[in-house]
């Protein structure tokens, strides 16, 4: 029953035009980045190596598919959650707005099963968006710019990863990025349970991400206590896989925080959805 219900939810997502806005947005943005890098990538490289230009000489292909993939993920990981919220924030509230939720809940399926199916459908949609991002950045980037070592720019220096040591980092990086996007999808879904229209949960999700990101990026000691517990802090956790040595403690901590957020948000969503009065 859960499988069929999830399939139905996926069909609903597939038939909504807004579901393709996110994917189209990613394709467009990445195409622009790829074009810009192909035309003027050396400028970006000079930003990376410029600090050492006086004394060091960099040989080899710095501008390659791996660096392009890294730059794209770094740029987009802040924006993709908004595209995800655009769809997942509509899953319950959209049905309330259209009045189809009454019909949906008359089916011989428990409310919890319906919400689980909406959650799994939002996870699958997130996965599709993530795979699109991975294909456009990692696969297409390599096809256009070729392979090579990855030079990662950090605030405290440069790390150069050899070509053979990169793919697994991207794989796990994408995996943890997927987890952080699922957290956003769950937040939007939860807020969607509280609303009777689509705009509210989407805007609220964007607002929360914006607020938490600002708090996370401000170097003010008063926020030091709460910063480690904000899910937005851990949305950049994919970058831990591009540290040397690998900081597994930070990785597991981030995974724990993200999973905890998903758990708590789902609990709230289930509570609210099961108690929800259907008035529309």
């Amino acid at each position, binding site marked *: 029953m859960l499988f069929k219900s999830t399939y139905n939810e996926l069909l609903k997502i597939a038939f909504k035009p807004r579901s393709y806005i996110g994917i189209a947005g990613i394709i467009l943005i990445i195409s622009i980045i790829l074009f810009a890098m192909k035309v003027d990538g050396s400028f970006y490289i000079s*930003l990376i190596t410029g*600090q*050492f*230009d*006086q*004394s*060091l*000489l*960099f*040989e*080899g*292909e*710095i501008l390659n598919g791996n660096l392009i993939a890294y730059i794209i993920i*770094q740029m987009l990981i802040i924006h993709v959650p908004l595209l995800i919220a655009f769809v997942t924030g509509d899953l319950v509230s959209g049905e309330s707005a259209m009045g189809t939720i009454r019909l949906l809940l008359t089916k011989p399926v428990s409310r919890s099963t319906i919400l689980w199916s909406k959650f799994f459908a939002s996870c699958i949609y997130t996965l599709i968006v993530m795979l699109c991002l991975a294909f456009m950045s990692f696969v297409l980037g390599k096809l256009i710019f070729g*392979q*090579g*070592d990855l*030079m990662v*720019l*950090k*605030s*405290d*220096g*440069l*790390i*150069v990863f*050899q*070509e053979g*040591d990169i793919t697994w980092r991207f794989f796990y990086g994408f995996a943890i990025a997927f987890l952080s996007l699922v957290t956003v999808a769950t937040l939007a879904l939860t807020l969607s349970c509280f609303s009777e229209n689509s705009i509210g949960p989407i805007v609220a999700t964007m607002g929360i991400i914006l607020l938490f*990101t600002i708090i*996370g*990026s401000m*170097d003010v000691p008063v926020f*030091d206590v709460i*910063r480690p517990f904000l899910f937005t*802090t851990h949305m*950049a956790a994919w*970058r831990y896989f591009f540290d*040397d040595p690998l900081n597994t403690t930070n990785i597991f901590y981030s995974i724990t925080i993200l999973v905890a957020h998903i758990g708590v948000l789902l609990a709230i969503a289930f509570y609210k959805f099961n108690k929800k009065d259907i008035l529309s």
Partner: protein
Amino acid sequence: MIHIKVIFILLVLFLSNTNVIAQNPRAMLNQVQIKINKANNYKADINIKVDLPYITMMPIDTKLYFKQKDKFKIDTKSIAILPKQGFLQLNMLVNDTVNYTAIFQSKETINRIKTSLINLIPNNDTSDVVLAKLWVDATNLVIVKSQVTTKSSGTVKTEYTYGAQLAFGLPDCIKFIVDIKKFKIPKALAADINTSKSKKVEKNTGEIIVVLKNYEINKGITDSVFEKVK
């Protein structure tokens, strides 16, 4: 008796010649130059190990190509980091007998090798090189250490270790000691949005160690090897 006289005369001539070289730094550098120029072209397998502040990278293995007088290439798809004043500058300094004045400074012993410290001073103020100090092994006529200060790249100290290719003046190992300026990058560019404190790096000098082996000397290298692939 005649034999003894001949040996004595030859000994005097030899000693006087050595003394001339020791006292005349340009003559000594000319000897070094002749030795270096014996290798018209060469290629070698190299291993580059970088130990610099602010930079983390694994050692890489690649190939180095050189052809007189100034063609040089590291053939690598990997990212390699070398000092800007790298392999060519010393050759250029030793070969340039017009623009630099060689001055003998002192005799020093480095790793049990007796060396003559020669300073090279540019003859005009437009030169990028401010001062080059060369520690020359007077016996083997090779440079064992150098310290080159330039206007553009600061100071680079280099230590050379010789082995099988001593006859060509080609080292088995080169250790570059490089000054690195403090690394500062805007947080937004690095996108470490959640890192409030960056690691403090105390030292501002680092080492790049290049180990050279499997030399192929004077086997001929075409110019196309040195062309950059676009």
